[in-house]
């Protein structure tokens, strides 16, 4: 009884919160607080979801593949550079402040340079998305090294473990929580990066679809497309968040 009640209570609160949110959203449009040019009712958005998804299916595919490529690239490079730098305390101290800057740079203003270097196909989108995810991830990778307790490593060595075993049994588990939290932020940052460039270039992908719908005031279609984009990001977000919680600690 004590275990079941909280679960129902949780669901009840969630539904209540969702309900209030949808109600306010719907009223805002119906009562004209917000002009229908800029906001569509929840019902309208849902009605347009399937037609938009069908129509934008190729762009959806492009965005998903671009996002996955960007996310993977950003994370892999972050892992490589992060580990390489993280090994030495010296290089960590030297480079961490520089890399921390990376989050603050308004990368959007450097878009013309991206086009210069990477052309106007999907490459600049992937690079931008990868960079967006790289910075939060690399900071996490480098600080994850600090999670490894030297005593545990010494103990493992004393017990006769080889370097690979130490890595698997001591180092990696200690670093895992921070790494997964890094993945969580990098994922969202990558997706936002991809979306923003697609929005700016307006050529391919869901960002381009949203751009065209926004400029021509196809409001319900636009929000449907946004819902579609958000669903993808939310799915990966949630998977990573609960994975991070599963791994227990989330320390820097």
């Amino acid at each position: 009884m004590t275990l079941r009640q909280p679960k129902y209570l949780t669901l009840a609160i969630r539904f209540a919160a969702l309900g209030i949110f949808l109600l306010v959203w719907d009223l805002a449009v119906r009562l004209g607080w917000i002009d229908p040019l800029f906001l569509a009712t929840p019902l309208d958005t849902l009605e347009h979801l399937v037609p938009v998804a069908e129509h934008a299916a190729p762009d959806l595919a492009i965005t998903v593949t671009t996002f996955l490529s960007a996310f993977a690239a950003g994370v892999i490079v972050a892992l490589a550079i992060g580990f390489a730098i993280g090994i030495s305390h010296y290089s960590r101290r030297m480079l961490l402040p520089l890399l921390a800057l990376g989050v603050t740079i308004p990368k959007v203003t450097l878009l013309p340079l991206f086009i210069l270097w990477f052309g106007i196909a999907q490459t600049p989108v992937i690079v931008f998305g990868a960079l967006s995810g790289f910075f939060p991830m690399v900071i996490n990778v480098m600080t994850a090294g600090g999670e490894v307790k030297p005593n545990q490593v010494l103990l493992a060595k004393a017990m006769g473990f080889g370097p690979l075993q130490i890595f698997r049994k001591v180092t990696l588990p200690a670093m895992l929580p921070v790494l997964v939290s890094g993945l969580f932020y990098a994922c969202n940052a990558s997706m936002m990066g991809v979306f923003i460039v697609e929005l700016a270039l307006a050529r391919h992908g869901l960002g381009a679809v949203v751009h065209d719908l926004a400029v021509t005031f196809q409001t319900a279609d636009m929000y449907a497309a946004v819902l579609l984009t958000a669903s993808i990001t939310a799915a990966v977000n949630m998977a990573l968040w609960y994975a991070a919680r599963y791994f227990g600690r989330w320390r820097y």
Partner: protein
Amino acid sequence: MHKLSPTLARLLLVLVLLVLWEIFTRFSSVSAILIAPPSAILWQMAQILVRASNVPDFYANAWLTIVEILIAYAVTAAIGVLAGIAVASSKVIGDAFEPILLVLYAVPKIILYPVIVLMIGTGPATKIVFGVFVGIFVIIFNTAAGLRQIEPNYLRLAHSLGYGGAKIFFKVQLPAAAQTVLAGLRLGFGYTIIGVLTGELLLVNAGLGYLIDWASVNYYTAQLYALIVITLAIGVVANYVVGRIERHWVRG
């Protein structure tokens, strides 16, 4: 073997990159409307700071952006930490709202910009609100995660010592979570800056974003990069200040 201090090594690295960039710009055929050599950029930076540049009202605009960032961050940090505490302290509230927060985090906030303009207008308030939207989630998630990860043993120990709820919170939970919470506050600061600047770039009437856009559309390439570097410098200084405050608090 004498090793340079990390700071010096960092400076040398940056210097080498600048020299390479200078050589590249001077000897390549890339158009002047795309990149500028570091020497020109540094010269423009000096000009801008002594008001001898053609950048319109630099100090007034820079100050406006700094104020927007500070207000946005104050709001973001306050609400973010409080929300994080709420999510972490009650299992019911946490489990109920977590998925909602994750979904909201997944929505590309940039498409809501016209709605914000509709509701709030074209002044600094709009950019502040947008900065809050972009920066708040990182702080909420990190605060919640930081508070949750505390070893149950610590809490049991505190209980057995007879500590009350508030005492446990301030003397046990908060210090243990401090590192994670502060890391979230720093990442959130970076994202708040991005939010405010993006808002200024979307509605270009004031602030550093306005100046950056002005330089971009008028092809004042050196000024453009000079302004971006100055914006970065502001971020660096702010980061440094926040870091000092963090060290002070963690010690206390």
